């Protein structure tokens, strides 16, 4: 047990240190302004300070830290992507995630569970093999498993051939993990603040000043500030915020919903995803099943939850796990996913000088929190795009150099 807990337990008058800090006044100018206090913005702030010694940084968050998608996602972490550029990128993130509790001195409850993407059709088996082969080539642990393997590895799974879409096999990715999503945001926020980064909640960016093609300041609901460089990391609001800087994006903002059950004793270890049935499920350390599916059928700027989502999700889930029919649902909610045409993020420079973007995280960006934070910090600090980010440049949509992730991602978390 940690020292902190002992201190706390033994001394009734123990006064904890304030870890999460909301800075008071906005200064008139910062070297770096980060718009968006989600995991990505906070991680970037942390790495700017830690790796590059840049601490005159303000994170501007219109609501509360981590209250966007970072606080709404189902926390699946994996690196079994389809394209080499995707695999390299997410694998770096996974490695950072593994060491993150110690790095931040804050337990993010990283829990390696193994990740199965079920295949119900021949075509899905082929795609699984494709992913497995690319993964293996790049040193990432993935393999195709078949029905008898599944019967052994996930005995709870309904492998009947009498169902509408029988399971034929799966892509098995042993490093697949879940973590406590909120803790990631808080950990980065707390440690960034310790190094001098200012965190401003309830601070909404309402305008962006661009002079001669260079960003010079941002308007907020609390006044204007001048800035050196700006990083936009606002997930579901990407198009609206970048429009303030005159930048158009290949993004649609679509709600993505999820739900949890009431807690039960541990029964399901791995993360199970079925693209054909649009469902995924894992069991958290608290004992709830955390479940989700595909994005809502149409875009909107709203995070209300819908009944259709629950009905569809459960219909499909019970095909995989019929014995769950008696489980009660605890809560459902939604976030806003930035969907790009190629199911890949948009990172790096923009047509506006000093204005950097981290967007297009769709349904898959939680797992990228570490790497995008670290590498975007590098990009801002050095003004050079690291190789690992190059394939994800905004310009690819002008030059028709899309990333080929779409094939693998019917439910791409």
């Amino acid at each position: 047990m940690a020292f902190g807990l002992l201190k706390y337990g033994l001394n009734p008058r123990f006064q904890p240190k304030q870890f999460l800090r909301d800075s008071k006044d906005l200064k008139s100018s910062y070297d770096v302004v980060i718009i968006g206090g989600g995991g990505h913005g906070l991680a970037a702030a942390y790495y700017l300070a830690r790796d590059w010694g840049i601490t005159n940084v303000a994170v501007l968050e219109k609501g509360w830290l981590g209250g966007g998608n970072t606080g709404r996602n189902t926390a699946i972490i994996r690196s079994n992507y389809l394209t080499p550029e995707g695999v390299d990128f997410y694998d770096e993130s996974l490695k950072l995630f593994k060491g993150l509790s110690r790095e931040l001195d804050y337990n993010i409850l990283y829990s390696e569970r193994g990740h199965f993407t079920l295949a119900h059709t021949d075509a899905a088996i082929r795609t699984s093999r494709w992913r497995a082969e690319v993964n293996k080539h790049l040193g990432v642990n993935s393999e195709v498993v078949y029905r008898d393997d599944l019967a052994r590895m996930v005995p709870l799974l309904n492998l009947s051939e009498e169902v509408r879409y029988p399971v034929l096999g799966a892509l098995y990715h042993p490093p697949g993990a879940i973590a406590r999503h909120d803790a990631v945001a808080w950990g980065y926020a707390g440690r960034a603040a310790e190094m001098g980064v200012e965190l401003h909640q309830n601070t909404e960016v309402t305008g962006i000043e661009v002079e001669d093609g260079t960003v010079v300041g941002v308007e907020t609901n609390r006044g204007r500030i001048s800035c050196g460089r700006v990083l936009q990391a606002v997930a579901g609001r990407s198009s609206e915020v970048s429009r303030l800087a005159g930048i158009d994006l290949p993004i649609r903002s679509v709600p993505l919903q999820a739900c949890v059950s009431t807690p039960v004793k541990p029964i399901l270890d791995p993360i199970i995803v079925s693209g054909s049935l649009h469902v995924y499920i894992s069991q958290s350390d608290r004992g709830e099943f955390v479940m989700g599916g595909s994005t809502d059928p149409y875009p909107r700027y709203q995070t209300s939850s819908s009944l259709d989502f629950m009905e569809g999700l459960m219909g499909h889930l019970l095909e995989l796990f019929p014995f769950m029919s008696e489980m009660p649902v605890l809560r459902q909610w939604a976030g806003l996913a930035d969907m790009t045409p190629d199911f890949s993020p948009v990172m790096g420079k923009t047509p506006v000088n000093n204005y950097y973007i981290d967007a297009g995280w769709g349904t898959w960006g939680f797992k990228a929190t570490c790497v995008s934070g670290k590498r975007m910090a590098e990009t801002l600090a050095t003004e050079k795009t690291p190789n690992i980010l190059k394939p994800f440049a905004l310009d690819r949509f002008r030059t028709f150099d899309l990333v080929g992730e779409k094939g693998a991602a019917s439910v791409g978390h």
Partner: protein
Amino acid sequence: MKIIECPLNGPRNAQEFVFGGDVINHPNPHLISDDQWANYVFIEENRAGVVQEWWCHVPTAYWFIAERDTVKDEILRTFDPSEIYKERIDYNRPEVEAQSQDTKNNKVGEVNSTNKETGSSI
């Protein structure tokens, strides 16, 4: 569940419909640059506010246009596409019919004033 007023079938649950994207005039590919075309293909308006978009009533495969507030998720009005698309559209090569083509496209753009202008803004 939301109710959508289908101009053909009346009010129905949203589940009967599929979304078809913003109403944007398909530009004549011969009259715009490659960059403009790339914008047309990939860039999304994704506006928070009132937009015009395509919806299809699946049981009847009927396409119509809706004005929707994407923040409140409220549909303000639905109507048949012929209100906007009144006449035949052609995309001929400019050398064939440059003049007449130009005016045709513009006409469509005018009727539908909330649309992105073909080419220029993208």
